[in-house]
């Protein structure tokens, strides 16, 4: 039975090594592909890494939507009530995208702190807001109130 035992041991060792390699690889890939959500305030403060694929969003500022008359390039601004983020995108905007509504975009922030978006997502329902945006809005309100100080 000794050779059988050896064979079994080899197999076990192999499995453990493969397991460690796999775990390491998984952790690495998760890290590389975890798309974090940043608020306009965070990006304005420089808290968001540049050149890294991330998501950001807020309320689309009224009157901020600009379209290139000759292509599908668009630019618009989103706000969380505190800071404003400029987003540029080339392509079709989602159906429920509109000024005054919430939008989330995914892409990379360039050195001008403009989000070059490869994807723009609007909420999937007429009247509801994505939780991340809603949360960031109310937190921004709180921060603003704290910095403005005092009460009315």
């Amino acid at each position, binding site marked *: 039975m000794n050779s059988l035992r050896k064979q079994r041991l080899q197999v076990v060792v192999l499995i453990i090594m493969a397991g460690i390699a796999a775990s390491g690889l998984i952790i690495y890939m998760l890290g590389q592909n975890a798309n974090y959500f940043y608020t306009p305030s965070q990006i304005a403060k420089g808290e968001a890494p540049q050149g890294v694929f991330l998501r950001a969003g807020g309320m689309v500022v009224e009157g901020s939507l600009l379209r290139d008359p000759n292509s599908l390039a668009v630019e618009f601004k989103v706000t969380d009530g505190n800071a404003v983020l400029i987003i540029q995108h080339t392509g079709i905007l989602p159906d429920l995208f509109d000024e005054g509504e919430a939008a989330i975009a995914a892409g990379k922030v360039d050195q001008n702190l403009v989000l070059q978006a490869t994807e723009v997502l609007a909420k999937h329902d007429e009247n509801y807001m994505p939780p991340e945006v809603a*949360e960031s809005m109310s937190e921004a*309100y709180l921060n603003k*109130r704290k910095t403005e100080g005092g009460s009315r």
Partner: protein
Amino acid sequence: MNRIALFLPLALFVVLTVVLLLGLDKDPTELPSALVGEPFPVFSLPALHDANQILDEQDLLGDVVLVNIWATWCFACRIEHAMLNQLEEQGVKVIGLNYKDNREAAIDWLKKRGDPYTFSIFDERGRLGIDLGVYGAPETYLLDAGGTIRHRRVGVVDDRVWNNEFRDLYAQLMDEKR
């Protein structure tokens, strides 16, 4: 397969359960607004029934109140409405926040279904909703007499929700007021 290896799946499952349990706590619609424990946001908006009357956060002070976000486009609000009518009959003061709606349609809606609201704030653009961190309708906030938000419910308030989440706190706040 030795004994220890056999227990491995169970161990992994226990870890998974713990993560999921913690995840439930973090459920986005359950997450209390950052504003719980904070004063109700400052605002200046017209009343629903009288466009000339301007309301602000001072109008919410002095009583323990429910602020209920509602709209004619919100179907679940129709279901919740009976509960609100019932609460009003029992003496609970309910204030409406008509969210991103059409004024005439909203007034008509209340005529048809009964108006449990002491008054309704008309937030046509949703600006107050933004400051509150509203996801949509219906949502209900419980304020104490000093105007501080003490609880928030995202979704319909029915018998079960009232008994589990609001009733005791409401009673406590009413006692404190006295």
